[in-house]
């Protein structure tokens, strides 16, 4: 409606301005989500202090104990403390989630921006390849690629990047087509800036926002699919503690020892909740900045 007048803006001191800029502090979703994740990471960093048990060493005399004050989440079929394993897995699972979104995002943004900015045959080629990649069901493609490369963390990253980049390429191209027409991009051309400078200084920063917003919801899905990959035995290999493989290993005991599957599952839910809250809050902050 109304715009702040020169007088107003002039009177606001630097700190006042910074405070109003610090809108992220006023987003409850962002604070709760961020707090949750932070707490989990801290707990995992302090895992050795919190819990006396070893996450890998087996204790066959103490298998399948139900949750108790001694073993908060019970023990698994090898007698390992499940709470300790869940804690130790936080870092790995978050790292997998972040990296498996970051790689496809970078690749997708780069190719999509190139397609959108240059147009012509580059655009045609890139977007048709995108079409081909989106035509495959996500998980089927990931499994196929891992099957070729052999199971393991690296092949999982490669597979998730190959399967996930096309969505980011689409977002980037769509946004660039809009921003390319914005007058400030025309202005940058009129100011005689090079294509590279226009692309990196004037266009990319303005399309990163929607990509990040998408990535925040994507990260949850990716963690879920990496856990399913581990569940299928294609991801992280035992005995490394990882939630997906823990659930997979606990499956035979689901009727007799529910805690083997349920409690690592809860950890996934909690991370997912934290991430989506964080994503929502971040989306609000980034959107209102425009």
């Amino acid at each position, binding site marked *: *409606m*109304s*715009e*702040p*007048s*020169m007088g*107003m803006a002039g009177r606001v001191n630097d700190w006042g301005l910074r405070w*109003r800029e610090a809108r992220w502090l006023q987003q409850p979703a962002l604070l709760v989500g961020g707090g949750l994740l932070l707490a989990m990471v801290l707990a995992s960093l302090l895992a050795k202090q919190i819990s006396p048990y070893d996450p890998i060493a087996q204790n066959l005399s103490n298998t399948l104990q139900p949750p108790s004050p001694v073993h908060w989440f019970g023990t698994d079929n090898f007698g390992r403390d499940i709470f300790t394993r869940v804690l130790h897995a936080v870092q790995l699972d978050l790292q997998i989630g972040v990296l498996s979104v970051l790689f496809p995002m970078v690749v997708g943004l780069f190719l999509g921006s190139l397609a959108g900015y240059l147009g012509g045959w580059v655009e045609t080629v890139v977007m048709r390849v995108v079409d081909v990649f989106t035509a495959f069901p996500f998980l089927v493609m990931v499994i196929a690629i891992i099957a070729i490369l052999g199971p393991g963390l690296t092949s999982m990253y490669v597979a998730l990047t190959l399967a996930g980049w096309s969505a980011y390429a689409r977002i980037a191209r769509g946004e660039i087509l809009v921003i390319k027409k914005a007058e400030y991009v025309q202005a940058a051309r009129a100011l005689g800036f090079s294509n590279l400078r226009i692309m990196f200084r004037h266009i990319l920063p303005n399309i990163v926002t929607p990509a990040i917003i998408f990535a925040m919801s994507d990260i949850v899905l990716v963690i879920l699919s990496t856990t399913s990959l581990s569940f299928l035995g294609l991801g992280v290999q035992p005995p490394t503690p990882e939630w997906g493989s823990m659930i997979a290993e606990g499956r035979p005991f689901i009727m007799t020892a529910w805690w083997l599957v349920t409690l690592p599952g809860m950890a996934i839910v909690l991370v997912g909740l934290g991430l989506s809250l964080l994503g929502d809050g971040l989306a609000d902050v980034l959107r209102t900045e425009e």
Partner: protein
Amino acid sequence: MEPILEVRNLTTQIPTRRGLLTAVDDVSFTLHKGEIFGVVGESGSGKSMTCRSLLRLLPSSARTVQGSAVYRGSDLLRLPPKAFNQVRGREIAMIFQDAMAVLNPVHRIGDQLTEAMLAHRVVATPAEARARAVELLRKVGIPAPERRLQDYPHQFSGGMCQRLVIAIALSCQPQIILADEPTTALDVTIQDQILKLLIGLQHELGVSLVLVTHDMGVVAQSCQRVAVMYAGQIVEIADTVSLFTAPKHPYTRGLLACVPQLAADGEVLPLTPIPGSPPDLVHPPAGCRFHPRCPLASEECRHGTFPLQQVGQQHVSACIKHEELGLLS
């Protein structure tokens, strides 16, 4: 002159991130039967919001917190929804700036024209509605009306769409039409056609028209009386001739001095801009809202409220120093 709509103390607020924004602040005016009443102001002055408050077409967060708008003995702002819908569209119609956006792209314009007539039971049968639709299209100057009833909005130009919207507004023979910047989106020659169409129709049908605009030229060419709005408030109301020849508010005077005018000999006078920018309506300046930009401002302008007061026949102004205006060069 017989009043047809009396608006008193209308106040509309919008909550924003930064605080409560008072878009329309204690606005009062009277619309007379059969006149064209101009409401002029810059963006953010509250002129459109005033119109929308009257028809309860506000954005969802905005609230009209105070005031009344009495039409035929009932207060529009307090009518129950069902009774209000009988008035809106039928007795009081609205014309918007963006005609293309008002028309539904998936319906034939014949259907859009007859819809309101049938809904308000202005006509008894679809055949009658159709006959009246043809007559309306002819009246607003759309050629070959029988054929065009079958067309879709995208087949019309911007100017023709605005004619259509006017036809729809007229379809239920309203008493009052609120026109919110009806010509702003149009080219000059088309704007001229639409304005003259509106003036002609108003003469012919005797409806009362509230014309909201930012253009002093449009006001001078079409209105009998004018209200000038600044920062959510009406600062001056006068008949058009008095307003343009002897403005009694420094803002009005400033507006007139900064609008470039065509001169028949092609010679131009330098423009005198109003310094500064309009205030932030979340934190408006205390006292008279125009004082930070006013050449006459003194200590007394910085505090208190400034209600409209009589300064001439049919002429009210909110400025306590209006007498000093003549002393300015």
